Protein backbone atom coordinates (compact mmCIF):
# COMPACT_ATOMS: atom_id res chain seq x y z
CA UNK A 1 0.00 0.00 0.00
CA UNK A 2 1.33 3.37 -0.99
CA UNK A 3 1.39 5.60 2.09
CA UNK A 4 2.65 8.74 0.42
CA UNK A 5 1.51 9.55 -3.09
CA UNK A 6 3.38 12.84 -3.26
CA UNK A 7 5.95 12.92 -6.04
CA UNK A 8 9.29 13.65 -4.39
CA UNK A 9 11.28 16.68 -5.49
CA UNK A 10 14.74 15.95 -6.88
CA UNK A 11 17.42 15.73 -4.19
CA UNK A 12 19.47 18.53 -5.67
CA UNK A 13 16.61 21.06 -5.74
CA UNK A 14 16.76 22.46 -2.19
CA UNK A 15 20.58 22.69 -2.04
CA UNK A 16 20.59 24.30 -5.48
CA UNK A 17 17.92 26.88 -4.54
CA UNK A 18 19.67 27.73 -1.27
CA UNK A 19 23.04 28.10 -3.00
CA UNK A 20 21.52 29.99 -5.94
CA UNK A 21 19.98 32.51 -3.53
CA UNK A 22 23.53 33.77 -3.07
CA UNK A 23 23.54 35.25 -6.59
CA UNK A 24 20.59 37.69 -6.23
CA UNK A 25 21.81 38.46 -2.72
CA UNK A 26 25.21 39.49 -4.04
CA UNK A 27 23.59 41.42 -6.91
CA UNK A 28 21.16 43.28 -4.64
CA UNK A 29 23.84 44.44 -2.23
CA UNK A 30 26.17 45.24 -5.10
CA UNK A 31 23.51 47.49 -6.61
CA UNK A 32 23.02 49.05 -3.20
CA UNK A 33 26.71 49.89 -3.00
CA UNK A 34 27.62 47.25 -0.39
CA UNK A 35 29.21 44.45 -2.43
CA UNK A 36 31.22 43.23 0.57
CA UNK A 37 27.99 42.57 2.47
CA UNK A 38 26.52 40.87 -0.60
CA UNK A 39 29.57 38.63 -0.83
CA UNK A 40 29.28 37.78 2.87
CA UNK A 41 25.55 37.01 2.82
CA UNK A 42 25.76 35.29 -0.56
CA UNK A 43 28.70 33.26 0.69
CA UNK A 44 26.73 32.10 3.72
CA UNK A 45 23.89 31.02 1.43
CA UNK A 46 26.30 29.21 -0.89
CA UNK A 47 28.01 27.50 2.04
CA UNK A 48 24.68 26.35 3.46
CA UNK A 49 23.64 25.02 0.04
CA UNK A 50 26.88 23.09 -0.33
CA UNK A 51 26.53 21.71 3.21
CA UNK A 52 23.02 20.54 2.36
CA UNK A 53 24.27 18.92 -0.83
CA UNK A 54 27.16 16.96 0.66
CA UNK A 55 25.83 16.17 4.14
CA UNK A 56 24.75 12.62 3.42
CA UNK A 57 25.31 11.16 6.89
CA UNK A 58 23.05 13.54 8.75
CA UNK A 59 19.37 12.56 8.95
CA UNK A 60 18.45 16.22 9.42
CA UNK A 61 20.25 17.31 6.27
CA UNK A 62 18.76 14.37 4.37
CA UNK A 63 15.28 15.46 5.49
CA UNK A 64 16.00 19.03 4.37
CA UNK A 65 16.95 17.63 0.97
CA UNK A 66 13.80 15.51 0.88
CA UNK A 67 15.72 12.23 0.76
CA UNK A 68 13.60 9.22 1.83
CA UNK A 69 10.59 11.46 2.43
CA UNK A 70 7.70 9.65 4.03
CA UNK A 71 4.75 10.44 6.29
CA UNK A 72 6.92 10.75 9.39
CA UNK A 73 9.45 13.11 7.85
CA UNK A 74 6.61 15.20 6.40
CA UNK A 75 5.06 15.45 9.88
CA UNK A 76 8.43 16.51 11.27
CA UNK A 77 8.70 19.06 8.48
CA UNK A 78 5.28 20.50 9.40
CA UNK A 79 6.27 20.73 13.06
CA UNK A 80 9.61 22.31 12.23
CA UNK A 81 7.90 24.83 9.94
CA UNK A 82 5.45 25.65 12.72
CA UNK A 83 8.33 26.25 15.11
CA UNK A 84 10.02 28.46 12.53
CA UNK A 85 6.82 30.47 12.06
CA UNK A 86 6.37 30.85 15.81
CA UNK A 87 9.92 32.13 16.27
CA UNK A 88 9.60 34.55 13.34
CA UNK A 89 6.26 35.97 14.55
CA UNK A 90 7.59 36.30 18.10
CA UNK A 91 10.67 38.13 16.81
CA UNK A 92 8.50 40.39 14.65
CA UNK A 93 6.23 41.19 17.59
CA UNK A 94 9.29 42.03 19.67
CA UNK A 95 10.69 44.28 16.95
CA UNK A 96 7.27 45.93 16.52
CA UNK A 97 7.06 46.73 20.24
CA UNK A 98 10.69 47.90 20.29
CA UNK A 99 9.92 50.24 17.38
CA UNK A 100 7.02 51.65 19.38
CA UNK A 101 9.25 52.22 22.40
CA UNK A 102 11.78 54.02 20.17
CA UNK A 103 9.04 56.30 18.90
CA UNK A 104 9.04 54.82 15.38
CA UNK A 105 5.89 53.82 13.51
CA UNK A 106 6.91 50.15 13.22
CA UNK A 107 5.00 49.93 9.96
CA UNK A 108 7.18 47.27 8.35
CA UNK A 109 6.99 44.96 11.38
CA UNK A 110 3.27 45.60 11.80
CA UNK A 111 2.58 44.90 8.13
CA UNK A 112 4.58 41.65 8.32
CA UNK A 113 2.65 40.60 11.42
CA UNK A 114 -0.64 41.29 9.66
CA UNK A 115 0.58 39.36 6.61
CA UNK A 116 1.54 36.42 8.83
CA UNK A 117 -1.84 36.34 10.57
CA UNK A 118 -3.80 36.78 7.34
CA UNK A 119 -1.82 33.91 5.84
CA UNK A 120 -2.51 31.80 8.91
CA UNK A 121 -6.24 32.47 8.92
CA UNK A 122 -6.53 32.02 5.14
CA UNK A 123 -4.61 28.76 5.22
CA UNK A 124 -6.81 27.45 8.05
CA UNK A 125 -9.97 28.39 6.16
CA UNK A 126 -8.79 26.81 2.89
CA UNK A 127 -7.47 23.67 4.57
CA UNK A 128 -10.69 23.34 6.57
CA UNK A 129 -12.74 23.45 3.36
CA UNK A 130 -10.50 20.89 1.65
CA UNK A 131 -10.41 18.36 4.48
Amino acid at each position, binding site marked *: MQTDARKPAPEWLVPFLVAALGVPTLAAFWIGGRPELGALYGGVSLLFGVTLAIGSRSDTLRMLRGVDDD*ERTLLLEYKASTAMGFVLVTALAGLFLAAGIRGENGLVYGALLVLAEVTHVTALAVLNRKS
Partner: protein
Amino acid sequence: MLNTIRELRAARGLSQAELAKAMKVSRQTINAIETERYTPSLPLALALARYFETTVEEVFHADGRP
Protein backbone atom coordinates in the same frame (compact mmCIF):
# COMPACT_ATOMS: atom_id res chain seq x y z
CA MET B 1 1.82 3.36 20.61
CA LEU B 2 2.66 -0.14 21.76
CA ASN B 3 3.02 -2.57 18.88
CA THR B 4 4.47 -5.90 17.87
CA ILE B 5 6.21 -4.79 14.70
CA ARG B 6 9.66 -5.68 15.98
CA GLU B 7 8.56 -9.19 16.96
CA LEU B 8 6.71 -9.77 13.69
CA ARG B 9 9.67 -8.50 11.70
CA ALA B 10 12.18 -10.59 13.64
CA ALA B 11 10.03 -13.70 13.24
CA ARG B 12 10.33 -13.31 9.48
CA GLY B 13 14.04 -12.56 9.58
CA LEU B 14 13.57 -9.12 8.08
CA SER B 15 15.79 -6.13 8.69
CA GLN B 16 14.31 -2.70 9.37
CA ALA B 17 15.60 -1.59 5.98
CA GLU B 18 13.86 -4.47 4.20
CA LEU B 19 10.55 -3.76 5.92
CA ALA B 20 10.96 -0.06 5.23
CA LYS B 21 11.48 -0.77 1.53
CA ALA B 22 8.38 -2.95 1.43
CA MET B 23 6.35 -0.20 3.12
CA LYS B 24 7.91 2.59 1.03
CA VAL B 25 9.03 4.49 4.11
CA SER B 26 12.45 5.18 5.59
CA ARG B 27 14.29 2.79 7.90
CA GLN B 28 14.17 5.52 10.54
CA THR B 29 10.39 5.49 10.40
CA ILE B 30 10.23 1.74 11.02
CA ASN B 31 12.63 2.21 13.91
CA ALA B 32 10.52 5.06 15.30
CA ILE B 33 7.38 2.90 15.13
CA GLU B 34 9.09 -0.04 16.83
CA THR B 35 10.40 2.15 19.62
CA GLU B 36 6.96 3.81 20.02
CA ARG B 37 8.25 7.26 19.15
CA TYR B 38 5.93 7.53 16.17
CA THR B 39 2.36 6.39 15.64
CA PRO B 40 1.87 5.53 11.96
CA SER B 41 -0.99 6.82 9.84
CA LEU B 42 -3.96 4.53 9.29
CA PRO B 43 -2.84 3.64 5.73
CA LEU B 44 0.61 2.66 6.97
CA ALA B 45 -0.80 0.75 9.94
CA LEU B 46 -3.10 -1.15 7.56
CA ALA B 47 -0.22 -1.81 5.18
CA LEU B 48 1.91 -3.18 8.02
CA ALA B 49 -0.90 -5.39 9.27
CA ARG B 50 -1.58 -6.72 5.77
CA TYR B 51 2.10 -7.31 5.17
CA PHE B 52 2.28 -9.47 8.28
CA GLU B 53 -1.04 -11.10 7.37
CA THR B 54 -2.77 -10.01 10.55
CA THR B 55 -5.04 -7.20 11.73
CA VAL B 56 -4.28 -3.69 12.93
CA GLU B 57 -5.75 -4.59 16.32
CA GLU B 58 -3.29 -7.47 16.64
CA VAL B 59 -0.33 -5.26 15.78
CA PHE B 60 -1.14 -2.01 17.56
CA HIS B 61 -2.40 -1.61 21.11
CA ALA B 62 -3.84 1.79 21.92
CA ASP B 63 -4.72 0.87 25.49
CA GLY B 64 -1.16 -0.11 26.30
CA ARG B 65 -1.89 -3.82 26.66
CA PRO B 66 -0.51 -6.39 24.23
